[in-house]
């Protein structure tokens, strides 16, 4: 059959003919349910749905029961009449193409064929297993909303709709994946969105021709600007408040059915250093935390490389006492400083991967073993030196401060480690220059990745966060509607108002 199952069939007036075509298409699938019955007026009908995707209670109460009980003066029902006056379900669509009917049923709808009408009704009685809305594992906040996206795209859209009650809030859907037929929603605010970005997203989505879309990661990799980029150029959000905030800045959110992670486009570098909590706490603390994040990000990529550069080439910059203790520690180990750092870094990555993938109890055991083996035994056995272990520990902790760049910082850390080890500070400087040039060349859907840092605009919400009432404008690169609050929003005491 291949990936394209469509045959351009139309719905027949003969119920049996429709069912034969469906049988021919599906074969003997055990979850396919075809129920033939008679309407109250004796007219022949058949319902067709997938077991497990529908709510049998709703189906019995609002679908089959009215169909079998309602009588009518005229001799036959049409689909239109049934939909308008018999069925008690809120959402339905009438199709004349059998292919469309089958596609709808595969999405969880229930189809109804009635004899004598060359149309079919597809009614919504979807009820498949899904998680409840709960706080995601990442993006945990002390202050702010706790709800997170789940795997249902419809629920996710409704979570966003609850945040933005405005008719300009638009949801456009496309269906991608030849086999998976995954629903994908583009969500944006029409009066704010950057239309060029929206147009590009649609264009790139249209080009996708793939068997399946199983997660938002597929879409991210298939539409991003620089496929080989170390840095992500598409943002992710696990919480509706984050996605809503970005949509209200002019971005487009892409929700994928089956994925609890929404994509937000375009992404700016500075976004990775921000947290939603920054906007919920007072500005001076938010600014301080942002500075901490910048420092942590720099530590996460530079510290091992800098340590090696200092230890192997530039011992003059190490304070004398520290130099002595480092030299003492290193003289006990069989490996060179660089190799020790590589070895312990590799061990950490293995332990981390094992800890994440294993079931929770086993993962904890691995963590404990890892901590003891790496933290204590390896030092006591003089396999590695304590300073090397301390450097790795600080680096690893720092890398988790900027969650958005954990992947990028892991690879960059390794590159800078090799540069520092082989070329000292010269290597680090060279690497930094290349990285900066590369970062400045990146774009996210036509928007410079390093803005607003590169153009030094909208600095009130960059490395520092100014008071909320000072951020009157949206970033110019993201939106065509710049003003986000009126001048009167300034708190009264700031104006000297004695009211």
């Amino acid at each position, binding site marked *: 059959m291949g990936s394209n199952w469509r045959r351009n069939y139309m719905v027949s007036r003969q119920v049996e003919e429709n069912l034969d075509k469906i049988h021919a298409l599906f074969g003997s699938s055990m979850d396919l349910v075809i129920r033939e019955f008679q309407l109250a007026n004796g007219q022949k009908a058949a319902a067709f749905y997938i077991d497990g995707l529908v709510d049998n209670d709703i189906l019995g109460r609002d679908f089959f029961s009215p169909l079998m009980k309602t009588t009518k003066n005229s001799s036959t029902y049409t689909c239109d009449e049934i939909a308008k006056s018999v069925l008690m379900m809120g959402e339905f669509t009438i199709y004349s193409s059998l292919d469309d009917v089958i596609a709808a049923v595969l999405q969880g709808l229930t189809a109804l064929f009635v004899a004598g009408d060359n149309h079919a009704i597809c009614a919504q009685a979807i009820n498949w297993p899904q998680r409840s809305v709960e706080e995601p594992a990442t993006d945990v906040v002390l202050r702010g909303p706790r709800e997170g996206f789940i795997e249902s795209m419809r629920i996710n859209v409704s979570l966003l709709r609850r945040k933005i009650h405005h008719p300009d809030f638009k949801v456009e859907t496309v269906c991608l994946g030849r086999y998976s037929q995954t629903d994908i929603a583009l969500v944006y605010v029409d009066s704010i969105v950057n239309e060029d970005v929206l147009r590009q997203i649609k264009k790139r989505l249209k080009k996708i021709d793939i068997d399946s879309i199983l997660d938002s990661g597929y879409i991210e990799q298939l539409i991003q600007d620089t496929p080989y980029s170390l840095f992500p150029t598409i943002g992710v959000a696990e919480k509706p408040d984050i996605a809503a905030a970005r949509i209200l800045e002019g971005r487009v959110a892409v929700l994928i059915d089956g994925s609890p992670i929404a994509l937000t486009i375009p992404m700016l570098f500075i976004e990775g250093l921000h947290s939603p909590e920054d906007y919920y706490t007072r500005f001076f603390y938010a600014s301080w935390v942002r500075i901490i994040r910048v420092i942590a990000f720099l530590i996460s990529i530079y510290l091992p490389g800098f340590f090696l550069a200092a*230890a192997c080439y530039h011992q003059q910059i190490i304070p004398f006492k520290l130099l*002595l*203790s*480092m030299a*003492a520690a290193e*003289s006990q180990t069989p490996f060179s*400083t660089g190799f020790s750092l590589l070895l312990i870094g590799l061990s950490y990555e293995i332990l981390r991967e094992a800890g994440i993938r294993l079931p929770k109890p086993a993962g904890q055991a691995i963590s404990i073993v890892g901590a003891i083996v790496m933290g204590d035994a390896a030092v006591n056995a003089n396999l590695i030196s304590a300073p090397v272990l301390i450097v790795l520990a600080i680096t690893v902790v720092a890398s988790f401060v900027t969650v958005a760049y954990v992947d990028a910082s892991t690879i960059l850390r390794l590159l800078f480690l090799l540069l520092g080890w082989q070329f000292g500070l010269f290597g680090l400087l*060279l690497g930094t220059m290349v990285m900066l040039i590369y970062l400045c060349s990146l774009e996210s859907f036509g928007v410079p990745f390093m803005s607003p840092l590169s153009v030094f605009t909208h600095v009130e919400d960059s490395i520092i966060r100014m008071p909320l009432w000072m951020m009157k404008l949206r970033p110019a690169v993201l939106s065509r509607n710049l003003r986000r609050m009126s001048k009167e929003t300034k708190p009264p005491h700031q104006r000297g108002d004695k009211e």
Partner: protein
Amino acid sequence: MKKLVMLVLVTMLVCSFSTCTDRQELSELAIVLGMGFDHMEDGSLQLSVELADRKMPQETGESKVFHVTAKDFTTAMDELVLLLDKQLFWGNMMVLVFGDSFTQEQVDDVALALYKSNIFSDELPLLCAEGTAADIINGSFGESEYVSKGLSEAISHDEAQFEPILLAHYVERLLANQASCQQIVRVDAEKIVSLGEMNIHEKQAY
């Protein structure tokens, strides 16, 4: 793909230009704290170096002293490297001490050579020992003074007047023909208690 090949080529080129030969592993460093020059009776040069003992990084650290004798400075340095089997690290050197007779005869040439070698700090203080430099470069440094204990005592003995001339200043005066060995501050070796001196010319595990 072309970009990748270019990247590899550029990386290899950079690697070949800046080789890793000057990399010094911490465990292979001999951290020099002070160096002394003495003129021996047979006309040879005795070089005394005080090295921080990296096996004792505690607050009251210790140092070890090594002496080599050779006909000139370059040979003495070569012998020292052979003796220690380590790379000498000069970044923490605190003082250059010249023996009394050495100061009278050779200090100008050596100061100029050391200055030109660029491995020493320009602000390295120069001292002249009343006796021999080996008496002052005598090991066991304290917490606050990372120089030999004997030198520390010598300095603190008359701290108010202790303003040693720096290597760069001395060379500047030398080039202007205004230098004199009298300008190098003299410290009294008689008042120094010698601690932990090592056996001369004996190769020891460092």
